[in-house]
């Protein structure tokens, strides 16, 4: 635990002894606050009881001595020195001439900062002094280690397999059925059928009359479409004429007389 006290006591002790050591000591501090904390600790009183004025004097003495020895001082040490010199003069002045914030506030702030840094420095020492793994306590040197092998267990059942097969078959097979086996009347056969039936008479015939009478409804629909196209085709060729009284009225077809022989 007392290890925490040592590093920063050593440096100033050495610094007090000769000038070279002072230089080294300044180098060893981490900035002005660090140096101030060391000086404060050397007053050997609680940081809450510390004399800020005495502290300021000590700091300024250090900086002056370093200056007299023509040692290079980091800028932040000099800034701190200037600020502390100001603080000191403000603290010595009558109150009326003081500005805001008051020197007491400034001194208190410095003291609070030193207290906090001191507390953390001590805490760090106590932390480092704990029983640390790899220094004071040791873990198992050669642990076997734990391995988790993740394994997936798949589940299914016969019904799912059979059902899936049924669905594959049902999904792929009907395509053949609906496309290949659909009862249709091709345009060619409709043309043949319509032109041969037209050849029998010169009277108007309704398109319905051309359809195969006993066909299944599906074939009838196909025959209707094909016969209609066949009728248009025959009309285009000049072998028949088409008439209709109005939209959706019965469609009538009649062979053209002149075309009979063609």
């Amino acid at each position, binding site marked *: 635990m007392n290890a925490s006290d040592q590093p920063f006591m050593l440096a100033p002790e050495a610094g007090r002894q000769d000038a070279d050591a002072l230089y080294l000591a300044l180098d060893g501090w981490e900035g002005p606050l660090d140096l101030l904390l060391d000086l404060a600790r050397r007053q050997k009183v609680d940081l809450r009881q510390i004399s800020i004025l005495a502290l300021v004097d000590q700091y300024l003495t250090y900086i002056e001595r370093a200056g007299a020895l023509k040692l290079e001082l980091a800028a932040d040490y000099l800034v701190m020195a200037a600020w502390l010199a100001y603080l000191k003069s403000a603290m010595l002045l009558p109150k009326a001439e003081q500005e805001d914030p008051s020197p007491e506030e400034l001194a208190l702030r410095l003291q609070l900062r030193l207290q906090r840094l001191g507390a953390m420095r001590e805490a760090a020492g106590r932390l480092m002094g704990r029983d640390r793994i790899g220094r004071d306590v040791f873990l198992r040197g050669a642990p076997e280690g734990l*391995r988790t*092998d993740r394994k997936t267990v*798949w589940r299914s059942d016969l019904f799912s397999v059979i059902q*899936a097969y049924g669905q594959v078959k049902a999904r792929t097979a*009907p395509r053949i059925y609906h496309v290949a086996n659909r009862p249709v009347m091709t345009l060619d056969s409709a043309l043949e059928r319509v032109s041969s039936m037209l050849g029998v008479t010169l009277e108007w015939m309704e398109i319905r009359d051309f359809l195969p009478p006993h066909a299944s409804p599906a074939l009838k629909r196909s025959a209707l479409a094909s016969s209609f196209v066949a009728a248009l085709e025959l009309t285009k060729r000049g072998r028949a004429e088409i008439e209709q009284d109005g939209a959706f009225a019965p469609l009538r077809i009649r062979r053209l007389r002149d075309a009979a022989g063609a």
Partner: protein
Amino acid sequence: MSDEPGTLERAVEATLFAAETPMGVEALCAHLGGLAPGEIREALGLLEARYRSRGVHLVERGGRWHFETAPDLAHLLRREKEQVRRLSRAATEVLAIIAYHEPVSRAEIESIRGVQTSAGTLDVLMEAGWVKPAGRREVPGRPVVYATTPDFLDHFGLASRRDLPGIDELRAAGLLDPVDEAMEAAMRFEPDEADEAQDDTPDPDDDENLAD
């Protein structure tokens, strides 16, 4: 065994615990500051007895000592975490096709399913232990063919593949219906053709062509 362990026993215990390799009596003597081998042996004997009923044992192998997990608990070191998952729809279909058509190549599976089959699907079936590669087909490209395994029969409670229901049985069970029914339903709702669609319903007798 309930008595407090002695200093030497504790020291040996800690030393062997922290050691990276097993240690012999001499090494322990040297490490613990030149004690007599007899003392160390005594401590080892006490420790060995003390740990005998525990989850960790102190064991000697070739004159060197170390701690290790009790043999009956060795299974704890490598824990197999089983994760039960249901086979995906795609994997089930592929499995079914292999079962019905084996041996069958991936291209054949795809042509039967009518969709591409991702490599992972076959992997899953092989991981499950239900499907295995079963040689190559002697056609151009020599594709690997797949077949089911005895585990497959086991898991699905089949004595042999012949126990799989045939197409006729599937149909009788209504298992070929779903897609047809969907079509039928779609047609039934087309208003103009409502009456005709009725007649279109593929009745069982007409369907024969389907299955063959």
